[in-house]
């Protein structure tokens, strides 16, 4: 008996010794992470970089954009949530209020990199003074213009329009170039495209778009009417293609890519897309302008990262979040691949030096806004939202004042729910 005890003990010691030589014998975990389809190109850069340097791996699952909310919500109800999740930042308030996300305030506050993240993200990820996430794969809206068409129209290709009126003037000159060349484009039936690219012009000209609750006034300020009137005028003058009226986003960038449009609002994502799909197109980027020179704004969008409540590996998920804010992740994962970093201190980095258009885009994050509201879907993104109905009625039917008033009433109604 005693002998077998010794043997057993000896075997145990040998095993322990072997494992300590071989390294920690803790099993490596695999975390599940859900990301949106439109971030499916950006997110893998970060995730692959993490996977190449860590024992614990992250497996990405791509969810179609407009199903992300319902997927997470039903997942929470059924107790089936991923370990980490990245989604459209605009849903943070709803998710935070619903209690879907894990409070990471203490760990984030102690992290030096977290303090350098763009205020837009930090504000959006805060609810009742607690922090629930941070920026992951940001994007921001900018004005994009076709330099070739500018040259042909006799405009200076290095002087993008800096006011709403200049957009109008430049568009007119470009339209005169030919029957299939248009001065301006926007997706007339796409609520998301317009909150991303049109609302910043309103904000720049002085307006507040969405209300936080039933007491705040929606669509407040002269900017709303000025921009809608600009679009209406450009539409009646034929500076915008007829197909824009029915475009629900499917052709958001197709026209500009074909070289037939002079100016339009777009996002940082389009810069890499254009370089890949239309390498011969000479284009420039600028801030989305307001009514006067010096007024500019942007919509800070893209995806945030958070940990759902019920995540089975919340500790590792937290490590991942802290890691993705480090220099290495932000520069090698994001900037190197032409994706904007969440940290403002890295806006002007070595990778962007070779492409000044990215520097402009990154700077736009600093001057940009993002609304902190509940019911964003209701008010903006849905196919029947007051936001898109206002744009459609104002621009295509000419009912500028009526449509603004109607949208205000509806949004107030929704916000007081």
């Amino acid at each position: 008996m005693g002998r077998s005890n010794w043997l057993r003990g000896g075997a145990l010691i040998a095993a322990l010794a072997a494992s300590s030589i071989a390294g920690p014998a803790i099993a490596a975990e695999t975390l599940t992470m859900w990301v949106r389809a439109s971030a499916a190109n950006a997110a893998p850069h970060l995730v692959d970089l993490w996977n190449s340097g860590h024992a614990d791996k992250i497996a990405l699952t791509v969810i179609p954009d407009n199903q992300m909310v319902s997927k997470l919500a039903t997942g929470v109800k059924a107790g089936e949530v991923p370990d980490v999740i990245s989604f459209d930042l605009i849903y943070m308030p709803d998710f935070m209020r619903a209690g879907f996300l894990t409070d990471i305030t203490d760990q984030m506050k102690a992290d030096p990199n977290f303090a350098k993240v763009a205020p837009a993200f930090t504000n959006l990820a805060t609810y009742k003074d607690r922090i629930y996430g941070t920026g992951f794969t940001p994007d921001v809206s900018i004005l994009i213009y076709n330099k070739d068409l500018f040259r042909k129209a006799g405009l200076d290709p290095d002087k993008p329009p800096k006011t709403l009126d200049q957009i109008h003037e430049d568009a007119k000159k470009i339209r005169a170039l030919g029957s299939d060349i248009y001065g301006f484009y926007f997706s007339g039936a796409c609520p998301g495209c317009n909150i991303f690219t049109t609302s910043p012009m309103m904000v720049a000209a002085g307006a507040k778009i969405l209300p936080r609750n039933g007491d705040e006034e929606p669509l407040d300020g002269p900017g709303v009417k000025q921009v809608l009137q600009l679009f209406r005028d450009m539409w009646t003058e034929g500076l915008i293609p007829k197909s824009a009226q029915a475009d629900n986003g499917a052709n958001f960038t197709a026209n500009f890519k074909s070289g037939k449009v002079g100016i339009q609002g777009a996002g940082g994502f389009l810069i890499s897309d254009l370089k890949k799909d239309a390498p011969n197109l000479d284009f420039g980027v600028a801030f989305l302008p307001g009514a006067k020179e010096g007024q500019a704004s942007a919509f800070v969008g893209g995806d945030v990262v958070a940990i759902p409540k019920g995540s089975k590996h919340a500790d590792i998920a937290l490590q991942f979040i802290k890691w993705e804010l480090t220099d290495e992740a932000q520069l090698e994962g994001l900037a190197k691949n032409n994706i904007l970093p969440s940290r403002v201190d890295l806006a002007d980095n070595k990778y962007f030096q070779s492409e000044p258009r990215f520097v402009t885009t990154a700077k736009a994050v600093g001057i940009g806004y993002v609304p902190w509201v509940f019911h964003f879907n209701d008010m903006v993104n849905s196919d029947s939202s007051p936001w898109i109905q206002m744009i459609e009625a104002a621009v295509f039917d000419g009912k500028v004042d009526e449509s603004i008033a109607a949208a205000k009433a509806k949004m107030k109604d929704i916000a007081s729910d």
Partner: protein
Amino acid sequence: MSALVDLGPNASAAATPRRRPHPAARVSPLLGALCVGVIAIMLFPLLMCFSASIKTAQEASAVPPHYWPAALSVENYLKVFRYQAGLPVYLANSFAVAALTIALCVGLGTPAAYGLARFPVPAKELVFLVLLSGLMIPYQALLTPLYIMAASLGLANTYLGLAIVHTVVQLPFSIYLLRNSFEETPRELEEAGIVDGCNSVQLLRWIFLPAAAPALITVTLFAFITSWNEFLAALIFMNKETAFTVPIMLVGVRQGHFGAVDWGALQAGVIVSILPCLAIYLLLQRYYVSGFLSGAIK
């Protein structure tokens, strides 16, 4: 595809091969031209889809468009093939779920249809209505409670869980088809079997199933099609990329920012997802025709 199901009241005619002129059988050049016209109209969209799928991605989104590609390219198909977990993974998942759906529809539908067709079941019409109720219910409305139920049973993210939802959608039609087929089976066959001393199970196995072969094939085909193409339940029930089915991949591969659509990838995806359905259809068609002809001949 000679006939799907015998809906007419004259059951006996269905069993005999047709040799006499049919009220509507005609051969004439006008009808021939009409057929060709119909074929052209029906094929046009698919031809254009295929044509766009072999264009370069840029050409597929060209404004204005052209019918045929200027340059051939497989980049759209490569994009579909390489998307996320890779096409083979999605195909395998879709096949697995479809196979389970077929098994459930046939396994549940056949006995139910047999019972309703050949037995004096009390409140038969009510039972039939209950079984067919799924036709009138928008299954999307049931997805949330079904998913919560599935999760509590440990069926979330499983083939079986999703197959159950697909069966909910497809079972009513399956039972309907099979019941009609069993009802139309000639009494003489059944009586012959009884005379031989068969009990109800043996009757089902040796007399009714062979007679209903066309209907069974049809049920299989439609169960496959429904399951193969279903998107919403697949997305809700599956939680890992490696468990996703083909329809989810199709939505992802074509999606860009703000709803921008990659038309080339879309077309390639459509073609890729049609091919298995087509293959099954062509495969079953052959069995189907011979099944009908040899069906219930004494």
